[in-house]
């Protein structure tokens, strides 16, 4: 995990779709590096032959019948939005595809 030093706050905040105010960047970068340094402790353990736990209960795929039902939620969701954020039965967002 020596790659810690490579943490680039601009790159990570871009991946996280997060504008950061310049004044908070430095502090956050320092905090993250400190935390990553602490986490390095895990390197002490040899986990070559250990399986990963993604789910503690070892549930296999959970299936159900694919039946249609009406949750009625769509109307309630849109009801509370201002007009600028909806059109008909849809959420309205700024243009996704630019002209050029």
């Amino acid at each position, binding site marked *: 995990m020596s790659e810690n030093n490579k943490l680039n706050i601009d790159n990570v*905040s871009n991946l*996280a*779709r997060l504008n950061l105010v310049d004044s908070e960047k430095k502090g956050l970068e320092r905090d993250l590096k*400190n935390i990553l340094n602490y986490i390095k402790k895990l390197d002490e353990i040899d986990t070559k032959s250990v399986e990963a736990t993604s789910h*503690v209960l070892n549930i296999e795929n959970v299936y159900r019948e694919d039946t249609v039902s009406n949750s009625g939620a769509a109307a*309630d969701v849109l009801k509370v939005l201002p007009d600028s954020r909806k059109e008909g039965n849809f959420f309205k967002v700024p243009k996704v595809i630019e002209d050029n």
Partner: protein
Amino acid sequence: MDLYNNTITDTLDFIRGDKEKATSVSDSLITRIKNIDSKVGAYVSFSPDKSIKGIEQNVSLDAAKKGAPFFGLPVSLKDNICTKGWETTCSSNILQGYIPPYNATVVKKLREKGAFIFAKCDMDEFAFGSSCETSCYNKRAMKQKKLKDGPASNPWDLNRVTGGSSGGSAACVAAQEAICALGSDTGGSIRQPAALCGVVGLKPTYGRVSRYGLIAFGSSLDQIGPLTKTVEDSAILLGIIAGWDQKDSTSLNVPVPDYTKSLIDNVKGLRIGIPREYFIEGINSDVKKVIQEAIEVYRSLGASCVDISLPHTDYSVSVYYIIATAEASSNLARFDGVEYGFRHEGGDLHEMYYETRNRGFGHEAKRRILLGTFVLSAGYYDAYYLKAQKVRTLIVNDFSDAFKKCDVILTPTSPTPAFKLGERMSDPLAMYLSDIFTIPANLAGIPAISIPAGFSRDGLPIGLQLLAPAFCEDRLFQAAYTFEQNTEFHKKRAKL
């Protein structure tokens, strides 16, 4: 005695299906809140006048269900549990104005039995914190929703934190502003504030309670659970909310026993494991003393104490802060201004996404989203996330091995009593280490309960934690109930 002081059992015994009496319980709580919540600050999205109306509607709605076993029982709710038509914010700016179109399964279950949602409790933003200090309502600009100007305070000492993240849920119960409450626990967020506020807090087995309608933080760790005045109330409330739910594919179809049948004052022959890794340097001397005395109480009642080892304890905070932040960064990706709550208007799509998130998320939320994004990013996944999942396996195995030698495990809930407001806010690592004793239960998916076990020299509550194998909540209730029946700590109330 004032009605607000009552437990669930007392309250139901008083109401007995009578609507007038149900209303007088609510009125008593409302008066109590008006008198003291400006000091404690446990509640949000709450104006007493609005809530009277809400309660009246609720009670008359449910009056039709007269005869429902929990008719008129007011339950306070952490503000990350969805309530249909009632703003649910996770104490975050980004969810201001979000009104869920559905009820969480736990809310549905409570209402079906005649209980109703009384008010919403403050919390750390998106449950990111151990002190309730990251709530957006602590900022002056947001204070209109709270009766208190500033962060939630510990009812035992108003200059100290409630713990977190379910700080409001713990404080309202401790301050007699609620009969009972629900919180959520991802790394100790029910048990740690319960310990710091001197109430009973239970994190059920992962999969015991449906997470449908709980706004997700760490999906492989989150559980909803009760915060109550007594162990009996904890058993009663878990009985209502537990069970399989088609809408949560991680809930398990295991029958729900009558937990009140485990309320037996007897620990003869019970083998209590004491993990040596939990009595480390840095643990507060009052906490150590109280826990050692608690062990003696159990011994004197006929339990035997076994020395056990959980060798990977020291790694659990590291594992947790990789897994929990990775899952959180993924879960919080949905908050981009399109569907939920706050949107930054103006500019193009890119600006809407980036600025909505910049302005909507607080500092700790950003810190965790960034950490989670980094550990999942290309080239680092194996070194962090996969590594953490592997060490998680070792932690799970530690517990399976330990439970071959003992029936329950006893530890302190928190290494210190409630700390001072502001004390750990500038040091995220120190804050993260507040959860060192509670995190392992979430990583292993096992149930754990915190109960009042004594007081520090300064009169602050100290909690003891009991852990059991998956789906053995009954064992926890019996051990906790026995301690409670043979001690007086739970009877002492914060003076406000």
